[in-house]
């Protein structure tokens, strides 16, 4: 019995010291996290968040991250201790211990507690991401082999394609494999409903800084929402294997002020005026109420 409690306290000490150590070292690294809406060289953590959803994802991830680094260091520490103390030279006579009920209960219960601690914020985050409060406009995204089409059903219903700028046309300062000819433009601080589908195979519309990643599935419309809180240009890439040019269908989103968005709309409507008429046909529409 004495031996058990001794062992337990040793493990506990190890654990607490390791956790505090790991937290300290991570905090040190923390300051080096870059703030950009695009990947930067040697970046090792998330891109800087631009939506409340991504902020919450990072916040929840940080909680798990610290605990998980602690677990890895705990196991590593125990293994180092074992190598030092229980090699055949240091400990020629093995013990006969094959059971320790207290210990076994402990390493079942502690993980369960940790998981519950994770599950609560996880569910909160999940349900927060699910519901847009009151979307003010809609963006429709259509995946094609190998470009994106964007449509603004609430703002004149015009549509345009967004193609990659090939490597040979990239100008200095532009980002290879991320720049497109027609960026999708969205207003800042606006809740936007995003409808997604595809015209051929599955694609996935993903912008890391937004915390958005949604499959575009042919024959099916998917829905999500986004609210960008910072003006800027954000980059993403297709995130579902879609064939030969999968690596060459980037997403570039330009987020502008609401006024600039209105100006852009005017310009875009004439620039991308579709062959189809936009007028709402009331033809044969009737309502039958009780």
């Amino acid at each position, binding site marked *: 019995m004495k031996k058990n409690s001794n062992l337990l306290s040793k493990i506990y000490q190890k654990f607490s010291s390791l956790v505090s150590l790991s937290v300290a070292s991570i905090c040190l690294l923390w300051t080096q996290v870059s703030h950009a809406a695009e990947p930067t060289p040697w970046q090792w953590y998330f891109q800087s968040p631009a939506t409340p959803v991504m902020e919450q994802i990072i916040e929840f991830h940080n909680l798990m991250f610290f605990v998980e680094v602690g677990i890895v260091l705990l196991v590593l520490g125990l293994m180092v201790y074992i190598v030092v103390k229980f090699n055949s030279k240091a400990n020629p006579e093995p013990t006969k211990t094959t059971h320790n009920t207290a210990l076994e209960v402990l390493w079942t219960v502690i993980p369960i507690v940790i998981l519950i601690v994770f599950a609560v914020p996880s569910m909160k985050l999940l349900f927060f991401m699910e*519901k847009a409060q009151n979307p003010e406009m809609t963006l429709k995204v259509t995946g094609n082999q190998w470009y994106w089409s964007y449509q603004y*059903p*609430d703002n004149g219903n015009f549509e345009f394609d967004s193609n990659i700028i090939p490597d040979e046309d990239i100008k200095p300062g532009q980002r290879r494999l991320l720049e497109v000819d027609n960026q999708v433009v969205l207003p800042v601080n606006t809740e936007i409903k995003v409808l997604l589908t595809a015209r*051929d195979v599955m694609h996935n519309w993903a912008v890391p800084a937004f915390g958005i990643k949604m499959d575009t599935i*042919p024959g099916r*419309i998917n829905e999500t929402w986004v609210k960008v809180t910072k003006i800027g240009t954000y980059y993403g890439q297709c995130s579902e294997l879609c064939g030969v040019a999968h690596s060459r269908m980037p997403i570039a989103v330009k987020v502008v002020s609401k006024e600039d968005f209105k100006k852009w709309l005017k310009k875009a409507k004439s620039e991308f005026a579709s062959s189809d008429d936009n007028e709402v046909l009331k033809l044969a529409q009737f309502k039958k109420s009780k």
Partner: protein
Amino acid sequence: MKLKKQRSASRVGAVVLNTEKENSRNGLTAVVLSFLVFSMIGLAYASEPLYRIFCQVTGYGGTTRIAVFDNKSSVAENSITVRFDANVNKLLPWRFKPMQNKIILKPGEQAMAFYEATNVSDKPIVGTAVFNVAPFKVGEYFNKIECFCFTEQVLLPGQTVQMPVTFFVDSSIVEDRNTKEVNTITLSYTFYASDDQSEAENLSKISLKMKKSINNPGETQIIQPG
């Protein structure tokens, strides 16, 4: 499994007996396990209809319902927006769009909307529309009474048709804790070229013979509801 070495007579006797019993027992085990394998294969196949039924019953994945409008159903207070969305598969040379962007109606009211499709190719083509609603969770409340998507559509070269869909949103949508905050439903269609193009082939033969007796290309035709 013949025994070559004997340790003691009684022991060997026991083992030989075991071996014979073992063979039939092994066979039985294998039969039971094979049954398991075949039932799993069966389950994989059963998943197809089961999945479809499951989606229809629960509205999973935004599957809509087919219904008969009930005049006595209640009408909710707040109106809801139904947005219309149209897509064409890349392999089908059609243009397809909703003729109205959206309709605002109250849950419990019946409404009709039109879509317009044009065959921009130079041969007749049979098309089929697939559909769902977003958000998915309202699928079980979205009821279609009549829809062009229930049947295949044949379009001649250059022909344009307007196609109706009559529907209503079940008023109990506002009572569901999950769906009551939904104020916009998107009804989306995607037209595909049908696998079975025999009807189009027949038509193209006929149209070659009697070009004029068929609707003039470019002329819009309205498919009557009902």
